[in-house]
């Protein structure tokens, strides 16, 4: 008998094994939902799949009676817009600041401890300040995500920059490169895939801050909707919304991963020289 660590599933078994936890989860839901509904047809906690489907249909494909909007898509678009804008700002600031801190010793001395301290502030604790200072509008929600995500990206990029083999930086200097040219031709191109990694890792917290901000002050958005219908125990809305958020987050992660693989072939596994 070989050791457990040396036993690998083949492709088919591997795919089956990956699907297994999902199937088990859905199966368990169906069984419990069926059992509860058999006991009390008015139970709201674990709605039947048919109920979820019809609610989802009315949210996605029927105009809301009051506002005339297709709520599901309005919510999705509002959340994605906030998230996209916030992530773009965070990634740009994080890249610029991280590069500068990683490359320039003076800036590192001045800013690295400061960024480390800032990154330890719990962003949700700052949320009231944001509401007071910038109001309850879009700005507060986007700022919350930016505050939560940027310091992490800055620190990550600064560390990755410092991790570049010193030999490369010395070699570039012997080829006549100035500081600016080293950043432009040596450091920055090698940081793009690192930035994508950092963004993938911060997606989870970005969604967390988005939903927290939407739950507190908003008029549309995925997080807003969930917290709104919670008052009516509307699990038939909450459950598909949660699944939809998960799917969105998963697709964003997947897209970033594919982009990294396609655009930066040199950085694929085993790609070190």
């Amino acid at each position, binding site marked *: 008998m070989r050791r457990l660590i040396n036993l690998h599933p083949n492709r088919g078994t591997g795919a089956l094994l990956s699907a297994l936890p999902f199937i088990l989860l859905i199966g368990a839901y169906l069984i419990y939902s069926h059992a509860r509904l058999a006991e009390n047809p008015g139970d709201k906690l674990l709605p039947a799949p048919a109920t979820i489907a019809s609610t989802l249909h009315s949210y996605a494909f029927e105009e809301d009676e009051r506002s005339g909007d297709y709520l599901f898509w309005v919510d999705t678009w509002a959340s994605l817009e906030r998230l996209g804008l916030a992530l773009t700002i965070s990634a740009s600031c994080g890249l610029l600041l991280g590069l500068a801190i990683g490359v320039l010793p003076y800036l590192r001395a001045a800013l690295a401890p400061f960024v480390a301290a800032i990154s330890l502030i719990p962003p949700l604790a700052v949320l009231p300040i944001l509401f007071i200072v910038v109001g309850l509008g879009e700005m507060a929600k986007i700022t919350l995500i930016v505050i939560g995500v940027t310091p992490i990206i800055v620190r990550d990029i600064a560390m990755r920059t410092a991790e570049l083999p010193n030999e490369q930086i010395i070699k570039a200097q*012997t080829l*006549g490169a100035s500081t600016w040219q080293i950043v432009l031709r040596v450091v920055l191109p090698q940081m793009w895939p690192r930035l994508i990694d950092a963004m993938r890792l911060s997606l989870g917290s970005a969604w967390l801050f988005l939903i927290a901000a939407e739950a507190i002050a908003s008029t549309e958005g995925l997080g807003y909707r969930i917290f709104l219908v919670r008052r009516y125990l509307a699990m038939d809305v909450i459950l598909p919304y949660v699944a939809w958020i998960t799917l969105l987050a998963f697709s964003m992660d997947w897209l970033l991963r594919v982009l990294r693989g396609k655009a930066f072939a040199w950085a694929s596994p*085993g*790609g*070190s020289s």
Partner: protein
Amino acid sequence: MTQVTVKRLWKNFGAQVVLENVNLHIGDHEFVTIVGASGCGKTTFLKMLLGIETPSKGEFLIDGEPLPGEPGPDRGIVFQRYSLFPHLRVVDNLLLGLELRGARFTGRLFGARRRRARQKADELLEAVGLQGAADKYPHQLSGGMQQRLSIAQSVICEPKILLLDEPFGALDPGITADMHSLILKLWNMNKMTIFMVTHDLQESFQLGTRLLVFDKVRIDPQSPEAFGATITYNIPLKGHRSPQPENHA
């Protein structure tokens, strides 16, 4: 013409003396090989030439000028590893030096200037036997090919001095002979001065026009760090200098 002069050079890190009283004069177009036991300051000596270490005492002059305190385009370097840029294809690794010099702001060449640079790069690629690998990334090359590229990358900038820090130390013994003929070819093509640190004694005799041996002359058993190494042998060798077409006046 490149002259390297070292006068009463000392280097210590705190209480630890690494080099003491090093005196040296190297004339133009020499191939200097440096050998010595581990930790006797050969690499420190090379780092000072490169500009990433500064002498503690004494003078280190190139053509009568003190060394600048940082690496520069007049002194090329080939490390044992890690001196290629993993995000650039082979030909772009080679072009980088030309592009950095040709375009101070963008660091990239376009149009006719790029074509001229590309032609020069292609010629050098052929000289080092990498013409078939121009579009590969460094991690797709073998160790020997990576070192050939790294040498070519330095040579394309026509440095006055080329520093080699055990460049063939990590390579398969079978391919070092190829590397030796390559480095001699480039050395004769570019008329530069080469300093090469090696731990292979045979290699140092075979390649060099001058062999430097670094060793400690004084040893205090109670405090081994109290005395540093110096050049104990400075041996002129026959070398592989090609007959020079033009005579020096």
